[in-house]
């Protein structure tokens, strides 16, 4: 007996929303990064769910694997960027990095 897919999807929805909220509220660059991770995880959860409950089969898992790997890469680069940002602004507050404002 299995929990039905909609429950998993709902969880992933919660993850996603939390990620978005995280991205919108956090002034800390790293916090935004975490929001991104949350969103990616939501996506992964969806992949796995559908690979479990639909003929999508293995492909879902493969895709989620790729997502994870690329997320790791993205995290590395983003962190490097954050460090640069910190070097230039002496802070990690992204609101201070608005040189590009109109």
């Amino acid at each position, binding site marked *: 007996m299995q929990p039905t897919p909609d429950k998993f999807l709902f969880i992933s929805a919660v993850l996603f929303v939390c990620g*978005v909220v995280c991205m*919108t*509220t956090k002034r800390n660059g790293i916090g935004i990064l975490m929001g991104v991770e949350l969103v990616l995880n939501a996506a992964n959860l969806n992949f796995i769910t559908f690979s479990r409950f639909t003929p999508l089969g293995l492909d879902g898992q493969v895709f989620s694997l790729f997502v994870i790997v690329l997320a790791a890469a993205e995290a590395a680069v983003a962190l490097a960027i954050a460090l640069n940002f910190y070097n230039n602004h002496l802070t990690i507050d*992204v609101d201070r990095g608005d040189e*590009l*404002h109109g």
Partner: protein
Amino acid sequence: MESLGNKLSTLLAIAWLLPLFGFVVEVFAMSWPNANRKSKAAAYFAIFCIGFGFVCSSIAFYEWGEGTDWAAFKAVDHGHSEVANAAEHGEHAATGHDDHEHKAATHETPKRTVFSGTFYNLAQFGNLKLSLDYYIDSLTLAMFVMVTLIATCIHIFATGYMAEELVDDYVDHQVHTHDGGHFHRPGRFYKFFSYMSLFCFAMLGLVLAGNIFQVFIFWELVGICSYLLIGFYVERHSASTAANKAFIVNRVGDFGFIIGLMILWTSFGTFSFDDQHEVDGNVNKVTAGLFTMVRGHDGHLDRSSDGQTVLLKNEQDVNGEWHVRKESDPGRKTITYTLLIVAGLGVFGGCVGKSAQFPLQTWLPDAMEGPTPVSALVHSATMVAAGVYLAGRFYPMFVPEVLLTIAYVGCITAFVGATIAIVATDIKKVLAYSTISQLGYMMLGLGVGGWGAGLFHLVTHACFKSLMFLCSGSVIAGCHHEQEMTKMGGLLRKMPITALTMLVGVMAIAGLAIPGTSIAFSGYHSKDAILATALAYTKLNPIHFLLFLVPLLTAGITSFYMFRLWFYTFLGKPRDQHLHEHVHESPWEMTGPLLLLAVLAAGCAIGGEDGKLFKMLTFSEPVGVGQGVDGAAAHTVSLPGHAAIHASHSTAGSAALLAAFIGMSISYLVYGKGVINPADIKRQAASVHAFLANKWGFDDLYDVMFVKPAHVVAKFAAAIDKFVFDEILHTFVRMGIAVSKWDRKFDEGVIDGIVNLMGNSTYSLGISLRNVQTGKIRQYVTFIAVSVVTLFVLLFALYPKG
């Protein structure tokens, strides 16, 4: 027979085209990036070309003689009928289209002596065929040999004379730059010889031409060459103006020439001298040439009953004789007599221009601005003689009225030229005027019916006049380009070869001979022939007695000024010591040709009218000339036949000789011994002298008649241009400006307004939008999220349920 024709045409074509090849090569060599201006390669190449041409033409001449087993020289005796017959044969052969039983019926030596054909078809407009033809008879051959020989001599001479051009930096002492210095330019050795080669090509083409249009082409070509060569020292103002003058004056003549061409084309439909053979399939189609149409086989004009129309013979019967077609025949061709006169006059106008006859003679003296070899080749021996040649070649087309005109023109030219030559002091000018008067002689000879005499004098004159020019060139070179005889004198010891050869030339042109014997200079024979013809002519038409007296007088004048020239230059004591000291004899490549030409000048006409040259020329005399024309029937002048001319030989000869001797002795007294001081004479007849020195005021006359009016007209035209057309244009322009002003207002007001409105609105929009771009990441994310949510909401709101 055909083979002979092919052989001749090939040989002459080689002789004709070689100079062109030389010209091309020299032009390229000249424009070669680092052409060595010090090498005489161009000269040697040009000499090779023309010399080889001479060899070819000599061979051709020999072949022709062999082919006709020297019929020309066998035709002896001046019996009327026989000459007529001989001429008839010649004519037959010339027009003769191998028609065996006819030949068998007529005479024993049915050999072709005239060969015509087509090298190449230039173009075909309807039935007007423009082609490169050849027309080879004894005259052509003689001209070829003469031209190539003299040209060769002059080329050799020029290698010495033009040697000073063999430098990279030639200083022209007669051209002064603004800073007072002399003009510097690279030497033009190459250029000179390339022009010479081009000229030889053109001249030979002119002689070889088989139709009048081709003649015209090469006519213009020689004109161009003469223009280039006269203007060889183009930086000298006098040279360039002289070149322009020569060219323009020739255009006047050529205008007449073109008129003549048009008439010929419209009424004859062909330009070809000789009949045209076209072999298509096995049918040998023959169309009549100009001469055949006019003269037919017996040399008589067929005129309609009222005499106003000339009927053209363009139908060939079985024996190859040509007849006028029937009235009904659509192919029947006629031409109004006056039109024929006009055509002849037109063509003769061309000749007048080219060989400096009476109205248009003024360009020739100025043409002496060119280098002396040019004067020798172009302006004495060949090109100016081309007019005479054409007149001779075109002789059958001339009706007696035209011939009378030719005679008078020649007569006047001869006298005018001679008189001016008396007072001229520039050595080359003297020769130039004598050239004019001699050309006048030739024309006179042709005009009075002495076809052979005219061309005879043409050849002899070419020899001695080129000789004299070369001598003068050698003198000038020796005197460092001093041409004024008044500064010379006593050059006999300094340059003996030049002096003696010059003396030979002088005697030749003066026409001296030892009375009673047949030993005489060439000039004597030719001039004698002309005078004899003139005498015979005046006997027939006494009203034209001047045509004999004036030439006789002119003969005396000629010998006078010629010896004056010689005495002035070579005898007496030097008038300019400084010049005299630096005089030197010319190098061998200049004196060599002198000697050769001297021999020719002395003896080219040995035997007179029994001599080979004269026989040879008269052999291809147009039919009908021989027996003369009885003008009484046609209410025109009548022309003497050979017999009449022969009858008046001795009288004319002795008269001419007498005149020559008188002239010679006077000049000896005046300039040789100085018994009479020429200055006194000058003072005595100052007005005459002034008149003559002013060249009979022809230049002033033309200045008043043409140049000034032309200037006035030009001014008027300029005024019209300036005050009418320009004004109109300016009005248009002003209107345009006004319109564009309004247009500008519209543009700035409306168009720009619209564009600016857009721009400003965009700008303000951007200004208001820039506030949205705060550069804050979180805000952007918020925007994205909001927009996504909004999209979803809209989707749900609008998407139909179920």
